[in-house]
């Protein structure tokens, strides 16, 4: 009689299942004259929250500036530049609670 059992190879990969890691996500929205952009960034380590906030803010702020002052508009590039000149201070302020 054939043995129905199958012997598993000992060099088969072993997969260990870990419980899924909890991600922390941060949304940052920037809005100028009713034109808005929001960005989400997630991290696995809560110590990285400040980076998630800053990256999201930098992108949201830049995109909102672009939408509010498009290059095709009158004085678009000048106003875009002025708008962006406030990015760093505003994002620092927005993300200061995650400083560490």
């Amino acid at each position: 009689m054939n043995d129905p059992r199958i012997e598993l190879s000992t060099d088969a990969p072993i997969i260990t299942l870990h419980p899924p890691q909890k991600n922390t996500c941060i949304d940052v929205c920037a809005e100028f004259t009713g034109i808005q952009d929001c960005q989400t960034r997630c991290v696995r380590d809560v110590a990285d929250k400040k980076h998630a906030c800053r990256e999201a803010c930098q992108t949201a702020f830049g995109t909102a500036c672009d939408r509010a002052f498009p290059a095709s508009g009158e004085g678009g590039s000048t106003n875009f530049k002025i708008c962006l000149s406030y990015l760093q201070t505003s994002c620092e302020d927005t993300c200061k609670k995650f400083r560490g």
Partner: protein
Amino acid sequence: MLGSDGWLPFKIPAFFVNQTVILELIRHTLSATVSIAAEIRIASWPSKNFIFPPSLAPLGTRFSDPRAVMAGRGEACYFPRDLNKGSYGGDVHCYQQYLSHKGYLLDEPTGYFGERTATATRRWQRDNGISGDDAGEFGEWSRERYASTHGLPLPGEGRVFKDAKSDEVRNRFLEIIHHSHGMSSSRRQ
């Protein structure tokens, strides 16, 4: 004050829009802080503690806050993408601040990556021995060098990432907020 539709109660012809008007427009924009399962931060303009740079300051503004000087050194820029000629945005502006602070770029940051930024990038790459990227392109090798120098997450490390599911949740939440406040975020100037 904003009108009921979230806009200023007056219209300004485009050719009259100068720096002052833009500041006024932005000063009156919506700034609300909301909180839900995910943390939502609103980048407002300008905050009550905001320090105007001298060139844009209303009369009588004082400049004693050191942040006015500290801001603009480009020391905490995030580069989730490569930058090259034609790129524009907040990351480009921050990068230009960095190049400017380090003496590689003499022009004022514009947020647009043009020929001068490419030339400054080539010089920075040469001085830092970066040859992996095309000369004048702020690619992965350059981004990695910048991040490691400034103690920021390295590109490709995956410490900070986008999450499609939270994008969905956020968008739905913002829709509800907008409906409840009778606002529209899709209007353009």
